[in-house]
């Protein structure tokens, strides 16, 4: 089975700072694979280890994808190969633009199954898999929490808000997995060394597809002013004050 795990490389949120004027400072933020993408890579590896086949990472993005540390990090998590489609035109793509670029890459490389994480670490639209599946015209599901191969198809468990659906999925298909489907492996020294020898395939990068919106601003939320009435000291006394505050609400 040829399993593709989609990966997005973006600035690590915890190292982005909001300036006093509410704009964002990315100076200290490094590019990194999204945490939820690792669930897709792990699910792909586990499935390939069960049924046989190869696991290929596929990433559409900017020149951040040229960073060898980022590439090695991806390849050390269980991928056999990494395919990249990189262009500096591909900054700030929306989910439909990304899906279109993934679609054209997949039509070149072929696939049996595409796995996508729950959402990217920057935008978290949770839509690339859904939009990609519709473009490819193949069976598409989100919130997939378990994947079991059965003959020529898969049986998946899908986690809804109040129920679990069991669904038979013929291949090829696009599945977005939950953050709870597995615990992604942490690469050891052996995997990191081996990652340096795995192939990276740079696919032709065309012009960015037309977007459907104009950016207006990206700003940290306005702080709601809070009373900040903070009490320290005797717990019973503090609790009595809080009880009075709550009763007055």
């Amino acid at each position, binding site marked *: 089975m040829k399993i593709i795990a989609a990966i997005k490389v973006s600035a690590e*949120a915890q190292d*982005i700072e909001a300036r006093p004027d*509410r704009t*964002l400072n990315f100076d200290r933020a490094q590019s990194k694979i999204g945490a939820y993408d690792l669930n897709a890579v792990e699910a792909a590896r586990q499935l390939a280890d069960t049924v046989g086949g190869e696991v290929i990472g596929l990433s559409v993005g900017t020149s951040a994808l040229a960073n060898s540390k980022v590439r090695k990090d991806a390849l050390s998590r269980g991928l056999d190969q990494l395919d990249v489609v990189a262009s500096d035109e591909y900054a700030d793509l*929306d*989910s*439909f*633009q990304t899906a279109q670029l993934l679609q054209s890459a997949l039509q070149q490389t072929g696939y049996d199954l595409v796995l996508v994480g729950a959402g990217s*670490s920057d*935008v*978290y*639209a949770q*839509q690339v898999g*859904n*939009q*990609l599946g*519709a473009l490819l015209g*193949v*069976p*598409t599901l*989100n*919130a997939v929490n378990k994947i079991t191969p059965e003959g020529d198809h898969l049986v998946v468990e*899908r986690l*809804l*808000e*109040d*129920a*679990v*659906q*069991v*669904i*038979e*999925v*013929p291949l090829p298909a696009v599945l977005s997995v939950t*953050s*709870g489907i597995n615990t992604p492996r942490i690469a050891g020294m052996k995997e990191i060394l081996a990652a340096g020898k795995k192939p990276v395939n740079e696919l032709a990068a065309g012009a960015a597809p037309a977007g*459907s*919106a*104009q950016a207006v*601003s*990206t*700003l*940290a*939320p306005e*702080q*709601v002013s809070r009373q*900040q009435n*903070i*009490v*320290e000291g005797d*717990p*019973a006394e*503090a*609790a*009595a004050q*809080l*009880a009075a*505050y*709550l009763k007055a*609400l």
Partner: protein
Amino acid sequence: MTEVFVIATGPTTLAQGARALGSVTAVNLGSGPVPGADKTLAVNAAGLVEGYAKPIAELLSARGAEVVLFDTDVQSRLLAGKIASYLGTAARNAAEIKLPNIGRMVYGGLAVATESVAGVAVLVVGPGVLPPLEGGSDAVENIALTPDDAGLKLVSTQPKGGESVNLSAAKRVVGVGRGFAAQDDLDLARQLAAKLGAELACSRPIAEGVNWMPTERYIGVSGATLRPELYLAVGISGQIQHMVGVNKAKAIVAINKDKNAPVFKQADFGIVGDLYQVLPALIAAL
């Protein structure tokens, strides 16, 4: 007046909220009228609702839809993504709607990215973004759509164990975090919630780290976002990814033993103290 389309996969207040944007036409995958809609087109779907994405997209195209709204549940989200693809646009999460401008949270709630949408806006609308308004009609037109499930076969649907919870409807919420040393200790928070008439919620590590509470109860950028009248955070440090889910609460109260915890910067009332001493005293005093 803009005709706003609401796609309903189950009970929803979205059409009531959508009245703020224009006249509302609901496409109900179920049967009967959708509250708040001026008119409901009832699909009476069978099988997986996502199979109706293409015929619904065709209907929206034919009617020249400019704004299409979805709830945030799993099935609505997939429908939104597929329908957006068929309409040739992106499905966007909406945390703020001032048409044509849409704001969505990015970088784990660190910022709101605002963009001006060209063409049809396909929006997944978070709870509380469009507060429900009065009005609407019971007018229903049944429509026949032919689904295409692309070979997917629903084998079974098993209700999840445990109780279901609608945090976004709760007026008061008590949130618990890793300040609690053991799962059994959450009883203290339950007693407090019972006294306050509050729902119990938690931070992400409690739901997805130690699994002490179901994921439906976690608050944050990838969990629930709420606007309760009171949010009382116990043993929660107040990371931005969590607070973004409650920072529109009318009143925020924090109890934490670390006086430098960021939660105090966002609290109206805070107690620096050991929750194991403060909570029993507070429960007794209420």
